[in-house]
């Protein structure tokens, strides 16, 4: 694995939740968050962070952005243990990390350019605002007021602001929300280019269908813990989701109990009047010929493509029906209510 840009060791943060008592109405108790979380972000790679709503993705990104403090654990930045300088953990993270939060509703009469300049001054960086805005496709909106921007434009502005100061690490929380398909594709392309230039990126997204094609690694998070992490192929293998083929044909459903050898397994089958579909785990090289020799017709034979939702279900133990309402593969989620976790 490449050198680690960021390493989290046993990181814990728990939200404080209001729990009023009769004589102590301000009482708070520990709520959800992230627990004993271990994660490594290699330099110049893109890590996809996927998990159901409330899994702790936003909390984790806020911790890494230095917006909320750690309860316990260690963060290593380029190999340096930040716990050696506990007073400066948040500051060091903020200096090295660009953060694009989810769904920022930029408002006010200030122009896009003025807003960029303000954040440039906050980062003490002599930035070329126009160039950054051009990069995210906002060059025609330089002098427009923030109130006049659409949600997609606001997303682009958030992205441009996260790039101020050329951060080594970029945290993108739902960057595709509100973007049209063309803009989403161009953001995807830009993220890839940044990674090629050595920027390490963590991207949290519900846009799972498109994620597999451009992330280098994937981390599945559930109830504040990483349940699987690695390259997609590695996770597939670990979860027993590799080496699967989807087969479809016409006529009677073949008797796979007889046709499969001892290493193969029938994962699912579906049979309607004249069509059948099955999914086989680790089919042997001669399975196709055995099916045909038994007089069956094969219309379709294809290795099963990686499916992040399936991985998530497998890793979390949730059924797709349970998780289905929470993960939307085409990603157009309603605005988050502020003050709530997600």
């Amino acid at each position, binding site marked *: 694995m490449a050198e680690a840009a960021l390493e989290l060791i046993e990181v814990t943060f728990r939200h404080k939740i209001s729990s009023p008592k009769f004589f102590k109405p301000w009482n708070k108790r520990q709520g959800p968050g992230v627990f004993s979380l271990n994660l490594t972000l290699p330099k110049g790679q893109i890590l996809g962070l996927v998990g159901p709503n409330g899994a702790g993705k936003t909390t984790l990104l806020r911790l890494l*952005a230095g917006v909320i403090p750690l309860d316990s654990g260690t963060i290593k930045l380029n190999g340096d243990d930040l716990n050696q300088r506990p007073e400066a953990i948040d*500051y060091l993270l903020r200096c090295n990390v660009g953060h694009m*939060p989810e769904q*920022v509703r930029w*408002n006010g009469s200030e122009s896009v350019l003025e807003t960029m300049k303000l954040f440039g001054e906050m*980062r003490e960086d002599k930035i070329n605002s126009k160039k950054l805005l051009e990069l995210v496709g906002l060059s025609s909106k330089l002098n427009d007021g923030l109130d006049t921007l659409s949600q997609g434009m606001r997303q682009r502005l958030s992205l441009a602001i996260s790039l101020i100061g050329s951060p080594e690490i970029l945290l993108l929380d739902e960057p595709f929300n509100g973007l049209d398909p063309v803009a989403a594709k161009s953001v995807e392309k830009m993220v890839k280019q940044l990674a090629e230039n050595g920027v390490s990126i963590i991207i949290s997204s519900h846009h799972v269908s498109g994620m597999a094609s451009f992330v280098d690694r994937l981390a599945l998070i559930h109830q504040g813990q990483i349940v699987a992490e690695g390259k997609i192929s590695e996770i597939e293998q670990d979860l027993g989701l590799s080496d699967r083929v989807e087969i479809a044909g016409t006529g009677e459903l073949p008797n796979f109990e007889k046709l499969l050898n001892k290493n193969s397994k029938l994962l699912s089958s579906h049979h309607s009047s004249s069509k059948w579909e099955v999914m086989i785990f680790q089919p042997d090289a001669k399975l196709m010929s055995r099916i045909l020799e038994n007089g069956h017709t094969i219309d379709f034979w294809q290795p099963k493509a990686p499916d992040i939702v399936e991985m998530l279900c497998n890793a979390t133990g949730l059924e797709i029906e349970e998780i289905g309402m929470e993960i939307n593969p085409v990603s157009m989620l309603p605005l988050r209510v*502020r003050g709530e976790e997600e």
Partner: protein
Amino acid sequence: MMLIPAEIYAIARRICLAKWKSNRMIIMFPILILFIPGMAWGFSDPDVMLPGGITPDNVPEVLFYTSLGVVFAGTMCGVLLSFDGISRDRFSGVLEVKLSQPMPRSRQSIGIALGYWAAILIPVWGLWLASTAIAMYRLDASIEIIDISISFISVGLVLLWYVLFSLIASTYSKDQGTSVAFGVGMWFLFTFLWALVTSMVAFASGVEIGEVNNAEMIKLEGYLDLLSPNGVFHHLLETTLDDIDRGVHWVISWLSALIWTCAPWYWFKSRMSKIKP
């Protein structure tokens, strides 16, 4: 400007300009004009007779009575400009972007406080200057540099206190309604209800509250006023007047002004250092 670090100045300037252009300021500026120079015009009328047979006959005295305009309109305007200073950014998600910048939160809080303070301070100071000119012109009198300086500093401080308390309330608010209620409630307490608090404490202390010019009541009121921003503001202005003595030494007045400045400032800074988006 160069005394202030560039990034603090940038935040303060942006807030100040945005507030000047806001609808709230467009609505409130005429009210400020009516209350501050308007009152100065009225109180500097040679024929004016205030309750108790008082006729203001010098500029500091006119400014002292004109300070009611600052108490009623200036502070209210300060509260209405700053009540959502933090909560608005929090709801929109902008606060999270700001907090993720390397600029220390303590500096961000200074920039925010200075921005909101300047947004109300500059117009009110402009009107206070106009009021001073009106009083000087109408009474055909002048004012000593020390007196005018004290009056300007006092006006600046009372506005700062209200702005800081509104911003502190805003850091606790989870919705706009709470921010408004806290800010306006605080203004209402110190502007209207403080007299009631004073009377209740006086009654409980056995002081005769019905009697006019009761020395004991005046003294008690003078000390209780140190617990209210408006009261401290008037104590500071009274240091420019010769014939008022409420038993509170000017050093105590300025010391309480210092406490009223430092305590909320520290509270706001501490809230900002712990705030979560």
